[in-house]
């Protein structure tokens, strides 16, 4: 891992250097009053190669990737998955459990059964 850090630094310096060279080339053209056609080949190659080196070394340094799971594990439980709001029905014990003003409906007289 330490090697890759050095490679990364070198790559970054090389990338910066190629950018600096490109800027220098443009100033040189302006001073010598020539038309700009394209960058010299060596600068382009240096930029591309050092970019590839930087990408590779970053990938190698930070390589403890996490697996992508097909489902969001841990987040979804049966409770939330099976909770279907469009089909809620309110005819359940909730009104007796959570409503402080709940009064029990009159039960039919059970004495007759005895």
């Amino acid at each position, binding site marked *: 891992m330490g090697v890759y850090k050095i490679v990364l630094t070198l790559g970054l310096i090389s990338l910066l250097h190629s950018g600096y060279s490109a800027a220098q080339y443009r100033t040189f053209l302006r001073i010598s009053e020539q038309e700009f056609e394209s960058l010299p080949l060596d600068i382009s190659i240096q930029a591309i190669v050092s970019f590839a080196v930087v990408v590779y070394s970053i990938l190698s340094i930070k390589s403890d990737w996490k697996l992508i799971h097909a489902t969001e594990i841990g987040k979804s439980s049966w409770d939330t998955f099976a909770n279907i709001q469009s089909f809620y029905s309110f005819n359940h014990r*909730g009104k007796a459990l959570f409503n402080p003003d709940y009064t029990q409906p009159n039960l039919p007289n059970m004495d007759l059964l005895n």
Partner: protein
Amino acid sequence: MMNEDLSFSEARDVLRKWRDDNERKSDEVVQVFEYCLADKVKKLGNEKLIILEQVFIASLDCGRIKLAEDCIRVLISEFPESLRIMKLKSMLLEALERYDDALDVLESIIKRDETNAGPRKRKVAILKAKGQIGDAIKEMCDYLKKFMSDQEAWHELCNLYLMEGDYNKAAFCMEEVLLHNPYSHLIHQRLGDIRYTIGGQDNIEIAKSYYAQAIKLNGNNLRALYGLYLCCNHIALSKAQIAKRKEAQKLASWALQKISEITEKSTGKSSNLTGVSALEAAFGNLDIKTN
């Protein structure tokens, strides 16, 4: 409960989290709203209306009709013509057990917008609330002929069939949900549950593979591990081929080991042998006995 101590923004965030995670938690929603947000409804900004809708449904769930009426009054004044609010109104009627009035409201919504799936689903919910499961199933089948890709509806139809004890049809509906969501361990686990409940050698073999797939997708699914253990035990004691029985026995002990690992991790206690054997004895009693 801690809900009284939440600050304004904490309360708002917790309600949003429950909304996003699709939690029911109706009692908690009502409490958080009443203690922390009720006096500052105006401060909620553009979240105000969605929170009011959430609290409205939660308060119906708790039978707090007065709070629900307060919420819907604000919503109606904001959107007097909205179909979504009309659906909420029908839900209020439903909670008051005025089912015929609720149905009238729903019919008028469907007449105005035939593509609106919500009110059609509520019609099924009303039949379910009245306890007419058979009619609810019929209504749901009609609905699914028109809206075939509605995953929630297939899931609910599965629940309705389970209430009726019609396990084969319930399994069919769950398979339909699985098609929409092939990598969900929960659906595999549920299908395993249904197949195991049907019973019989073939179904238990199928249940075993469903449970195995659920564990492959999520190794921490405890219920699937228990299910796999039960299926393997059943196969090990059955009249299957010897190789198959041996393999099932191995798998059962693996499942049991995984279970004790997970429970150890969550309780922080190291497992002792008596615990495992007690578990084994308990599961021996749970196993389906074929007479």
